[in-house]
């Protein structure tokens, strides 16, 4: 071999060698010597068998055995133990045959590709992880009910989830890469304008409620968040997350309609109640004006009672109308002097209590709650009347009202020594027409306690029947304490 060729082969980084059929080296370059960690002279003329361990040798023999006169050349990547470390070598071996196809030896060029193989392995491993992550992400995106879109600043949908595609009656792959103008027509304009606003400001838009009308579908409503971000060198992107609130909107419309009907009903009821009330009040007034002189003082005193009753009823109607129309949050509640209110209610019900030979014990300390005076009067009058109505005939009626503070509440208990209520009816008694069975024989509308609960609930409070060891029943009402600035 010419010396210059020898020089070229020695400077080549690949392991280049020749060996005979007994695997005895007939040529090795410097890289081969380096591979074995020996001098060239220590390799040339020696068999590979004496220079390689059995595992590596087996691999090489297997590689060589695949060579035939028809396919004298083979390339493979073989794992090997090189200088004690695992390594990969890229082998290209050519079997050398003479004219009679008798094998004379081999020529081999190999290269250490451990680094490339390691990188490739890492790459494959990362790709696998990425694929898994993508499958998981897709699965998550396709599971959430929200419609998720990922768009660029040219209005192109880069990605979307299944819910978004389903909402358009299309497949994910048919939408990805499409321009929204092609999909939504003119309606896309509004989406695009909102997107541009987000791109320009760099600030997200949240909770935007908008109609959503795909070409092929009915109009729906969505609540949308638009979040901008920059995706590497690909320019600005926008993540659009929409929640379909069509059903919510429909329910809202139904609720509005129900409220409107309720409001109309309240107005009508109020009007229908006001008319006879006005008639009673004015007729009594006219009667007093025209006949008062001819009537005894005792009869004239009744006109005062009528006027008070009419005025009280008118106030009640006004309060009810206000409560029927307003949401609990919207009601402008004021401070109510409950001690005075209870005294007033007791005075109004004095004759009923006296006829039942009863006693009523009221709290004397100041109690100020947040509420509506007339409506709360109605509640406590109802509870006191119930205590009288459902009394135990074997003992004199005794009603006791106590109040104590508990955090931001006044807790007012109204207990009696009456016939009591079976605890299994504890909830039922507050239902409309839900009277406790043992009392079905006693006259009553079945509205009283339902009304009490509605009034107390509208005040943000609670009313419940409390179990006690004593005979009779005990109702507990919780009402917000009036703010100190309101106590006046």
């Amino acid at each position, binding site marked *: 071999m010419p010396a210059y060729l020898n020089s070229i082969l020695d400077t080549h980084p690949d392991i280049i060698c020749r060996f005979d059929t007994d695997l005895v080296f007939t040529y090795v370059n410097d890289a081969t010597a380096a591979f074995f960690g020996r001098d060239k002279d220590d390799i040339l003329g020696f068999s590979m068998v004496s220079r390689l361990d059995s595992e590596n040798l087996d691999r090489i023999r297997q590689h060589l055995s695949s060579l035939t006169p028809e396919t004298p050349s083979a390339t493979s990547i073989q794992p090997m133990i090189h200088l004690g470390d695992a390594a990969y070598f890229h082998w290209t071996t050519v079997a050398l045959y003479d004219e009679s196809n008798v094998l004379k030896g081999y020529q081999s060029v190999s290269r250490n590709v451990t680094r490339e193989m390691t990188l490739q392995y890492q790459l494959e491993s990362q790709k696998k992880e990425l694929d898994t992550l993508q499958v998981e992400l897709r699965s998550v995106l396709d599971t959430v009910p929200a419609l998720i879109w990922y768009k660029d600043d040219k209005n192109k949908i880069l990605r979307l989830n299944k819910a978004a595609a389903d909402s358009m009656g299309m497949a994910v792959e048919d939408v990805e890469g499409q321009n929204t103008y092609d999909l939504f027509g003119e309606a896309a304009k509004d989406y695009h304008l909102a997107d541009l606003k987000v791109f320009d400001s760099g600030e997200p838009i949240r909770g935007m409620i908008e109609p959503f009308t795909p070409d092929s579908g009915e109009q729906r409503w969505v609540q949308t968040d638009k979040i901008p971000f920059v995706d590497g060198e690909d320019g600005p992107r926008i993540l659009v997350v929409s929640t379909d609130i069509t059903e919510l909107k429909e329910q809202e419309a139904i609720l509005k309609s129900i409220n409107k009907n309720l409001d109309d009903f309240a107005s009508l009821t109020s009007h229908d109640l006001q*008319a006879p009330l006005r008639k009673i009040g*004015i007729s009594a007034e006219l009667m007093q004006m025209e006949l008062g002189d001819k009537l005894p003082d005792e009869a004239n005193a009744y006109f005062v009672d009528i006027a008070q009753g009419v005025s009280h009823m008118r106030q009640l109607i006004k309060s009810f109308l206000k409560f029927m129309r307003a949401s609990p949050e919207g009601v402008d509640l004021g401070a109510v002097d409950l001690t005075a209110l209870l005294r007033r209610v007791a005075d109004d019900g004095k004759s009923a209590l006296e006829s039942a030979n009863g006693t009523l014990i009221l709290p004397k300390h100041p109690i100020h709650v947040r509420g509506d005076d007339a409506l709360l009067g109605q509640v406590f009058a109802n509870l006191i009347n119930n205590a009288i109505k459902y009394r135990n005939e074997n003992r004199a009626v005794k009603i006791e009202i106590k109040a104590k503070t508990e955090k931001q509440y006044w807790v007012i208990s109204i207990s009696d020594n009456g016939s009591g209520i079976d605890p299994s009816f504890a909830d039922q008694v507050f239902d409309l027409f839900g009277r406790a069975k043992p009392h079905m024989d006693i006259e009553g509308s079945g509205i009283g306690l339902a009304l009490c609960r509605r009034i107390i609930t509208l005040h943000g409070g609670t009313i419940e029947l409390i179990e006690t060891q004593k005979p009779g029943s005990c109702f507990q009402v919780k009402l917000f304490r009036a703010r100190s600035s309101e106590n006046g």
Partner: protein
Amino acid sequence: MDKVLIIDDSDFDRKMIRKAIASKHSNLEFTELSSGHAITDLIIQETPKIAIVDIRMPGMDGFEVLDAIRSIPELSDLPVLMVSGSEQAEDRDMATAHGANGYFVKPPSVADYFSLGRSIYDQYLCCSNGGATSTSC
């Protein structure tokens, strides 16, 4: 003699409106109808000076009656006051929208009724030319 047309399905309210307006004036003549359907040619020819129309009436409500009055050429300029049993903001708005000259809620007491009657008389009946511009008399 000035004529006052009162249309209200409630006998009691018609009586009270009449009593209130007529309390201090005997030179008035009242025509009371329980429904807008009862407006006849005779009533139209009587050319009332003012009409007081209840809003909530069965069949034909007050606004329909007002529209009907406005469509009769002889009554197109007739001052019409709409009356409601209870304060309703929408009733007030509707009354204005339908071209009523005024809106009031039926008063809760005799004194208030009489006070309203006086006010109506002063504004629409005491001067021969009547109408909203007569408040100065």
